[in-house]
């Protein structure tokens, strides 16, 4: 142990382990499972604060027939608002599927790198596909 502190010359190809600095960020690529995890977090936050938009729309759609139609023309009929709605739809579907994967990994399965990578890809692909299906159905 103690000879770690003695300064022997380092072999050139020996990997160094250290915390990365801000200046490394541009070159640093988060591994795929890491990307899956950070998007789970971002979608969770987006959904929590997105409720500020979703609840009034639920209220509007339930209030009366005119309210429901107003939702369809004002929100669904407006390209920007529609994009936001589709974004939130993607957020919940991604968060749902990634959440299921997260719970499975908590139970000790799917943890080795290869499987973790392929299930992360499966989360991306399946959430895009399910979102697309729903959007296509409701368009």
């Amino acid at each position, binding site marked *: 142990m103690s000879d770690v502190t003695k300064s022997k010359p380092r072999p050139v190809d020996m990997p160094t382990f250290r915390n990365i600095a801000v200046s490394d960020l541009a070159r640093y690529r988060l591994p795929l499972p890491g990307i899956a995890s950070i998007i789970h*977090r971002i979608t*969770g*936050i987006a*959904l*929590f*604060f997105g*409720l*500020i938009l979703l*609840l009034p729309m*639920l*209220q509007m*759609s*339930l*209030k009366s*027939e005119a309210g*429901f*139609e107003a939702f369809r023309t004002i929100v669904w009929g407006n390209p920007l608002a529609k994009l936001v709605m589709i974004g939130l739809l993607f957020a*919940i*579907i991604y968060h*749902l599927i990634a*959440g*299921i994967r997260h*719970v499975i990994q908590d139970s000790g399965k799917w943890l080795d790198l290869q499987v973790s990578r392929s299930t992360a890809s499966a989360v991306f692909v399946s959430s895009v596909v*399910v979102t697309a*299906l*729903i959007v296509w*159905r*409701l368009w």
Partner: protein
Amino acid sequence: MASNQSGIQDWWLQRISAGIIAAYVLLLIVLLLVNGTPTAAQWQALFANNAFKAFTLLALIATFYHGLIGVLHIWPDYIKNAATRATLNALSWLAAAGYALYAVYILFGLK
């Protein structure tokens, strides 16, 4: 809420609430995929059904709780300044409490 010492309680509540929300979201997805865009009458009839209304309220309360536990765990990971963190915590609590009151009003307060 994040007041329990070990975090185990939060962990379980996070998963139980997730299960409730997941069941509700899956039900809605299947309904939308099978039936397509509902008419105003169909949509409002669905929410007039008492069992569905109760499930909606349960799922919404689970959502507010789940989201609140989630963001309360996230802020300390990124926000090092105590005052900023306290502000974000307070805003998150306020949002969750406001959502809950609003949800009850939407589902049971409208005549």
